[in-house]
């Protein structure tokens, strides 16, 4: 019905955090090399802007495709109130319930998987750095 609204809200927050992290990192790092294609690293590992860009990709990608699916099923309409579930109080209650269950689960799952991706990447970097030192 409108489960994708919850990950959309998270995507907006993450995008704001991404730009804030990018701005903060620019202040403390040297000027960027043009054509740099390697993973952005700092002394502690992967930068927060890089990590957040992965979460942004997952969230916005999912949200765009899910919004299309809702449009396909007629759950999003091109005129106010834009969500067909908002046309009656019963449907709205059902929509809110779906957002609280399916929507929140979607956001939590994507965030958990992102956490695993970050942990995996950090572990890989640690191993590579240890191998370089040896």
């Amino acid at each position: 019905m409108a489960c994708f609204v919850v990950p959309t809200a998270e995507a907006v927050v993450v995008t704001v955090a991404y730009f804030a992290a990018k701005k903060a990192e620019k202040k403390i790092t040297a000027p960027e090399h043009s054509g740099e294609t390697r993973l952005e690293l700092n002394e502690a590992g992967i930068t927060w802007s890089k990590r957040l860009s992965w979460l942004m990709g997952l969230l916005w990608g999912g949200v765009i495709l899910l919004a299309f699916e809702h449009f396909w099923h007629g759950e999003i309409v091109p005129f106010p109130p834009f969500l067909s579930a908002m046309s009656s109080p019963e449907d709205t209650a059902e929509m809110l319930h779906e957002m609280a269950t399916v929507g929140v689960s979607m956001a939590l799952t994507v965030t958990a998987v992102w956490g695993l991706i970050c942990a995996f990447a950090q572990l890989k970097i640690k191993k590579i750095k240890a191998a370089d030192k040896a």
Partner: protein
Amino acid sequence: MTLLITVISAVASTIIWYFNENRDKYKLGTLSLIYWGASLMWLMDFVFEYAELKAEYFVQEFADILNDSLLGVAVVTLGLVVWVVILLFKDPKDVFKKKFSNK
């Protein structure tokens, strides 16, 4: 079917990302993240529907399967469109710069 088609696309794009040396230049990671994000969200949708319907979930009319498959193909196409727009916007090969520059 939509979930299945999206997961197949996510796996395929990840394999392409892994084996392509120009993965960063052509934003292959972004394409992969788009499909994985959608796959994870539809997976949760599936979990909730399966918990409600149990085995009945898999008993579907042919028309529903066809509609879901068409939606899956449309979703994969939309993912590709989003990726192409990002690619053109970033212009990693400076195609627009070369085309429109006076130098």
